[in-house]
């Protein structure tokens, strides 16, 4: 099987290595010179092509015409979509795979006939949800250099903040609510109209020294 991968840094390289191990033929297309150097060090230079994978001429040079699978794994959703459409419509690649970062883009990738869509954000979120156990405040990630950490907070049933607007509750300085998980709803990004509700699970970035204060405000 011939697999062509466009971009993707760590993901792209690891994917390439997996396919190489499975004895597939692999080519990584990369347009960033710095990335290219790094990828070439990780893989053999024969498996790397310098260029913009959204250009028809570059796809042609990569031998897209005989590729069985094309994986677009850059950080730009629009580049991934257009490269996949070219591979599919112009070079008739059987399977096109695209990585997307904005979950709302899934519908257009579907409509344009991309075969496999990997939603980065939802993969991470569902993994987070899966692993988080329900305790009032739990540290998810410590960021040593800036003494901040990312924590999970659950709003208790009879908490003071329940039914209050998020914007009306003053939190300690340098505290940011990154998102709210509420029952089966998609991840909520709090805005001026968002209320706290009992059972909400918040993912919050907070200074280490403000953690206790945050806990008091949200869970008392």
């Amino acid at each position, binding site marked *: 099987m011939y697999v062509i991968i466009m971009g993707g840094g760590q993901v792209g390289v690891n994917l390439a290595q997996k396919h190489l191990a499975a004895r597939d033929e692999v080519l990584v297309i990369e347009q960033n010179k710095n990335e290219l150097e790094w990828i070439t060090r990780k893989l053999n230079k024969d498996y790397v092509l310098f260029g913009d994978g959204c250009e028809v*001429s570059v796809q042609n040079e990569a031998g897209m015409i005989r590729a069985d699978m094309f994986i677009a794994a850059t950080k730009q959703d629009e580049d991934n979509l257009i490269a996949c*459409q070219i591979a599919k419509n*112009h070079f008739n690649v059987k399977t096109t795979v695209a990585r997307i970062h*904005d979950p709302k883009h899934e519908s*257009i990738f579907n*409509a344009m006939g991309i075969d496999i869509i990997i939603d980065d954000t939802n993969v991470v979120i569902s993994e987070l949800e899966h692993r988080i156990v329900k305790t009032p405040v739990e540290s998810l990630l410590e960021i040593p250099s800036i003494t901040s950490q990312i924590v999970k907070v659950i709003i208790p049933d009879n908490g003071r903040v329940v039914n209050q607007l998020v914007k009306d509750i003053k939190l300690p300085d340098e505290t940011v609510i990154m998102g709210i998980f509420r029952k089966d709803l998609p991840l909520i990004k709090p805005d001026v109209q968002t209320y706290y509700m009992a059972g909400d699970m918040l993912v919050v970035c907070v200074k280490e020294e403000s953690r206790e204060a945050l806990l008091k405000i949200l869970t008392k």
Partner: protein
Amino acid sequence: MKIIIFGCGRVGSRLAVLLHSLGHDVSVIDYNPDAFLKLPETYKGTNILGNGMDDDVLRRAGIEKADALIAVTQGDNRNIMVSEIAKYIYNVPKVITRVYDPVRCEMFGKLGLDTSSPTLTFTNAISEDLLQGWAVPEPSDPKEEEPEKAEDPKEEVAQ
């Protein structure tokens, strides 16, 4: 018409002013707040600050009720993708897409988008303009024709 313009560059801003002056309901999207400085104070259309590929931003610009969307950012892929979203997800009746790359312009034109490549148009216009009158000298009376024909293109270039 309700018209959304994606990208407030030279073309986007000019179009916005023109269409607004003709009485259309215009919304311009750009992620760079400075881009809106190109619009004169007399312009009273709507400016939407944000990434036009973000669904919330498109809805804020009124894509659900738009009659037309024009994608004129600097990114070909961005223009194509937002046009596809407008055409296939929101069923916007008229979608025009600027694609600098002539190859992608033709390809996505064939796939159903109304694409236009300034690269192609401009190259053709210039070469036509430049070579006007530069017909290969006819073997019959080369002495009469040649000097006059050589003048023309020089004038055009100087303009």
